[in-house]
C-alpha cells in the first residue's frame, strides 16, 4: 500500500499531465504484477464490490475516534468526502505495517459474507495500521468511487512508456471485460495477440485552425471544402470480417456504437474509413448534446439507440483492399471513397460528407457564416493534392470555425437559483488555467442547461462541495463546460484581467476532463480579434 499511496500523492500534487505519466510509468516499473493489474483496474473504474455499508463505517469511525456520531457527521459534512473524513478523524498509527494493495483488496473481497463484528474488527485493525494517505485510499477501496484525476488515456500512456508497447495496442487491451482478480499482467498487457494487428488504427491527421484570411490559401480549385461536423472524430476499421471503431483519444469505442456492426454487410472487407461519429435522424445531424448522452455510457439502452442513433459521416479513406492509401492525394482518396459509398442504401449507417462547390472565397465565407444553422461548426479545407499526414500539421488541412467566441472551462463555484429553481444549483463560476496550471476564475454563467442537467449537477455539487460561503459552494474543479459569449474586453476589476459580455453555458462537456480546458492565454488571444 505504501507504494500505491506514494503514487497517489504524486498524482494528487500535480496538474501537469507529463508529471502524472512519469509517476505512473515509474510505478509500473516497480510495482508487483498483481498490484499493477489492480491499479489499472481502479483507474479504469473496475473497482471491487462494496462489502461494508457506509453507515457502519461512519459509526465505527466515530466510536474509534471517541466522538459522538453527530460530530463525525458534521465533520464529514465539512470535509465533503467520507473516505477522507474517516482518514482524518482517526489518529495515525504508531506501529505501521505494510500489506500490498492486492492483499488489501483480496481481504476486502473476502469480507463479503462475514459477520458484522468480523468486518468491524478487520476494518478497525486496518485503520490502525496506516498513515493518513493510506487510510484514505483504503477507505476509497471500501466505499468505491475512485476519482483522482487520472484518465484511462494517462494510464495507457504510462503503460506504453513502461512496457514499450504501442499506445493503441494497450488501449485495445484495456477495453472489454477482464477481471482484475484473475487476469495476470502478462496476459493483460504484455502477451501478443492476433487481434492487436487487425484492430490497429492509423494515427489521425488533425487540422489547424485557420487564422489567416482564406484568400491567402491561393486558388480555390486547389481546395476541397466540406462542413465541419460537430460530432466525435472516429476511425472505422473493417478487417478479416471484424469491425473496430476508434475515437480520437486512442480509445476503442466499438461497444458504444453497436449500429456500426451493420456496416459489415455493406462495406467491402479490409478498409479503414476516417469520419465523424454523428448523432443523426431523418437526414439531419442532432446536436452534440444528444451524442454526449452516449459518450459516458458503457452500455447503450434500446431507448437511447432509438432516440439518438449514430451514423458515420465519412470524409476520408485510409485503407482499401488492405492497402495503405495515405500517400495518395486527398482527391484520389475521395474518389475511391465515393466509389464505395455511392450506391449504399439509406439504412446503412454511413454518409459521405459532401464537398462544397465554391467558385470564389466569398461564396465560402457566406456559407461558413450560415453553417451553424446546419448544426455544423464551420468549414474544413483540405488541399486536394495533399497526402494523409500524422498528427497536427500545418499547411494542408484547415478548420475554419464559426464564432470563435467560446471556451472550455471548469466549474469551481456553484450557487443556488431563485424561485422555481431555489432547490437547484443554477449559477456557476468558471475558471480557465493560467500559465502555471493554476485555475483563474473568469466568468459567471447560468442559462443554457436543461432542468434535468441542473438536477444532475445539483446532486453532483452536493457530493463534491468543499466549502460553503453562505449560498455559494466551492466544488472540486472537475466538471467541464463549453461557454459562449458575445464579446471580450480587458478589465482591471477582474482577477483574470478580462471581462466577458453575455457569457452563457453552451453545453456540458462530459467528454472532457479539467486538464483539457482552455487557458487564460487562449482568452487573451481572443482579445486581439
Amino acid at each position, binding site marked *: 500500500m505504501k507504494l500505491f499511496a506514494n503514487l497517489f500523492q504524486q498524482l494528487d500534487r500535480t496538474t501537469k499531465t507529463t508529471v502524472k505519466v512519469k509517476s505512473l510509468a515509474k510505478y509500473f516499473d516497480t510495482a508487483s504484477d498483481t498490484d499493477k493489474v489492480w491499479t489499472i483496474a481502479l483507474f479504469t473504474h473496475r473497482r471491487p464490490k462494496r462489502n461494508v455499508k457506509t453507515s457502519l463505517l461512519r459509526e465505527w469511525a466515530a466510536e474509534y475516534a471517541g466522538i459522538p456520531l453527530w460530530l463525525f457527521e458534521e*465533520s464529514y459534512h465539512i470535509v465533503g468526502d467520507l473516505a477522507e473524513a474517516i482518514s482524518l478523524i482517526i489518529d495515525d498509527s504508531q506501529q505501521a505495517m505494510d500489506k500490498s494493495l492486492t492483499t488489501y483488496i483480496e481481504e476486502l473481497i473476502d469480507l463479503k459474507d462475514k459477520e458484522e463484528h468480523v468486518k468491524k474488527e478487520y476494518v478497525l485493525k486496518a485503520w490502525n495500521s496506516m498513515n493518513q494517505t493510506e487510510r484514505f485510499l483504503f477507505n476509497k477501496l471500501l466505499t468505491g468511487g475512485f476519482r483522482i484525476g487520472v484518465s484511462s488515456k494517462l494510464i495507457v500512456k504510462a503503460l506504453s512508456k513502461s512496457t514499450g508497447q504501442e499506445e493503441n495496442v494497450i488501449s485495445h487491451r484495456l477495453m472489454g471485460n477482464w477481471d482484475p482478480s484473475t487476469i495476470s499482467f502478462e496476459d493483460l498487457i504484455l502477451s501478443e495477440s492476433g487481434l492487436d494487428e487487425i484492430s490497429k488504427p492509423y494515427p489521425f491527421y488533425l487540422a489547424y485552425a485557420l487564422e489567416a484570411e482564406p484568400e491567402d490559401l491561393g486558388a480555390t480549385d486547389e481546395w476541397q471544402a466540406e462542413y465541419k461536423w460537430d460530432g466525435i472524430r472516429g476511425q472505422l476499421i473493417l478487417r478479416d470480417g471484424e469491425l473496430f471503431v476508434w475515437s480520437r483519444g486512442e480509445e476503442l469505442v466499438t461497444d458504444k456504437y453497436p449500429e456500426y456492426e451493420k456496416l459489415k454487410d455493406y462495406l467491402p472487407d479490409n478498409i479503414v474509413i476516417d469520419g465523424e461519429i454523428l448523432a443523426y435522424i431523418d437526414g439531419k445531424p442532432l446536436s452534440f448534446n444528444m451524442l454526449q448522452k452516449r459518450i459516458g455510457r458503457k452500455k447503450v439502452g434500446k431507448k437511447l439507440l432509438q432516440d439518438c442513433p449514430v451514423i458515420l459521416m465519412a470524409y476520408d479513406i485510409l485503407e482499401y483492399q488492405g492497402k495503405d492509401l495515405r500517400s495518395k492525394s486527398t482527391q484520389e482518396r475521395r474518389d475511391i471513397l465515393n466509389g464505395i459509398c455511392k450506391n449504399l442504401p439509406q439504412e446503412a449507417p454511413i454518409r459521405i460528407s459532401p464537398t462544397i462547390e465554391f467558385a470564389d472565397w466569398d461564396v465560402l465565407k457566406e456559407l461558413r457564416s450560415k453553417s451553424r444553422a446546419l448544426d455544423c461548426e464551420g468549414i474544413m479545407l483540405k488541399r486536394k493534392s495533399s497526402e494523409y499526414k500524422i498528427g497536427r500539421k500545418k499547411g494542408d488541412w484547415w478548420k475554419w470555425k464559426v464564432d470563435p467566441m467560446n471556451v472550455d472551462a471548469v466549474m469551481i463555484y456553484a450557487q443556488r437559483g431563485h424561485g422555481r429553481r431555489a432547490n437547484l444549483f443554477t449559477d456557476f463560476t468558471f475558471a480557465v488555467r493560467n500559465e502555471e496550471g493554476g485555475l483563474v476564475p473568469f466568468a459567471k454563467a447560468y442559462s443554457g442547461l436543461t432542468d434535468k442537467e441542473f438536477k444532475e449537477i445539483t446532486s453532483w455539487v452536493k457530493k463534491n462541495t468543499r466549502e460553503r460561503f453562505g449560498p455559494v459552494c466551492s466544488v472540486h474543479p472537475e466538471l467541464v463546460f463549453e461557454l459562449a459569449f458575445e464579446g471580450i474586453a480587458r478589465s482591471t476589476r477582474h482577477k483574470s484581467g478580462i471581462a466577458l459580455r453575455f457569457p452563457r453555458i453552451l453545453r456540458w462537456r462530459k467528454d472532457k476532463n479539467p486538464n483539457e480546458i482552455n487557458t487564460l492565454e487562449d482568452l487573451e488571444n481572443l482579445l486581439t480579434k
Partner: protein
Amino acid sequence: MQRKLIQFKERGLYIAPIDTYIDPWRPVGKAIITHGHSDHARRGHGAYLCHDDSVNILKYRLGEDIKVQGVPYDQVLDIDGVKISLHPAGHIIGSAQVRVEYRGEIWVVTGDYKTEDDGLAVAFEPVKCQHFITECTFGLPVFKWKPQEVVISEINEWWTENVRLGRPSVLSSYALGKAQRVINSVNHDIGPILTHGAVENTNEVLRASGIDIKETIRVTPDTDKSLFNKALIIAPGSGINSPWLNKFKNASIGIASGWMMMRGARRRRAADRGFVFSDHADWLGLNEAIKATEAEYIYPTHGYTNVFSKWLNEQGYIASPVETEYEGEVVE
C-alpha cells in the same frame, strides 16, 4: 441575572465598567488589541492598548499617529477597579490573551492562539477564569497538527527537491506571523530566502523592535535572478494570486495553512504542495486549553462555533457561540 462583565455588542466585545472594547470591528474610543492581524487590529479607534511587541506592528499597519500604549505580559493595570492584564497566546509575536477581573468575576478573551511553542511568539499560557471567550477556527476533530519540526522538515524536503530540479519554491503564508515562523525555522543551508515586499516590510518592523528574524532578501526588480531557482520565496496569498508570481518561471507553489489538511482545499488552490501549518490551535489544543482555564462558561468565536459549542455542552460546560467579525485563518 446581573449584567455580564463582558458584553457582546455591535462594535465588539465590550467591558462596560470602563467603556473599553477588546478587538472591536467598528471604531471606538478605547480598544485593547490582542494581536496585529487585520481582523483584530482595526483602524479608527481613539486609543489602543496592546502588548509591547505589538506596538510597532500596530503603528506600521494602522499608522504612526495612532495613540498606542504597550504593556508587558502579566503586568496588571487597575482601571477604575477593573484589573486588566495580558498573557501569552502563542499565536504570533505580541499576541495576547486579555484577562479582565472585576468584583471577583474573571474573564479571559483569547484572541487567536495556538498551544504549540513555535520558538518565536512567547508560548501560550493557560489563565484560570470563569468565563472564557475562545477562538475555534479549527474546532473540528479532523484538524490535528503535526509538530512544527515535522512540517518544517517537509518544507525543507520540498525546497531541496525544487533546488535539485532547478525551479523556484514559492511558499504562500501570512505576512505577519507564519512567514517569520517559517523563515526562522527552515534550513538556511539549502539556499537563500527571498521575500515579497509585504513580508519583508513586516520583517523590518520586527527587526527594528529587536526581534531576531533570520536573514532574508527582498525581491526587487534588481534582484539577481540566478538566485530564484535556489531560493525559498515567501509571499502572502495576495502575492501568489498576482502577476508578481510570473517573475518565477516554472515555480513550485506551496501553501502553508491549517486548511491544507483537507484535500479539497489543496486542490482548489491548484497549489503543488499544501503544508498543514497553522498559528491556530487544533482540536486537541482547543480542548486542552479550555480545560486548563477551569472555566465554567465558554464562548466560542471564529469558525465552527455552533458545532463546537454543542460539543462543549456535552462535555459539561455551559457554552454558547458568539457572533464576531473575526475571520480565522484565510487562504486567499
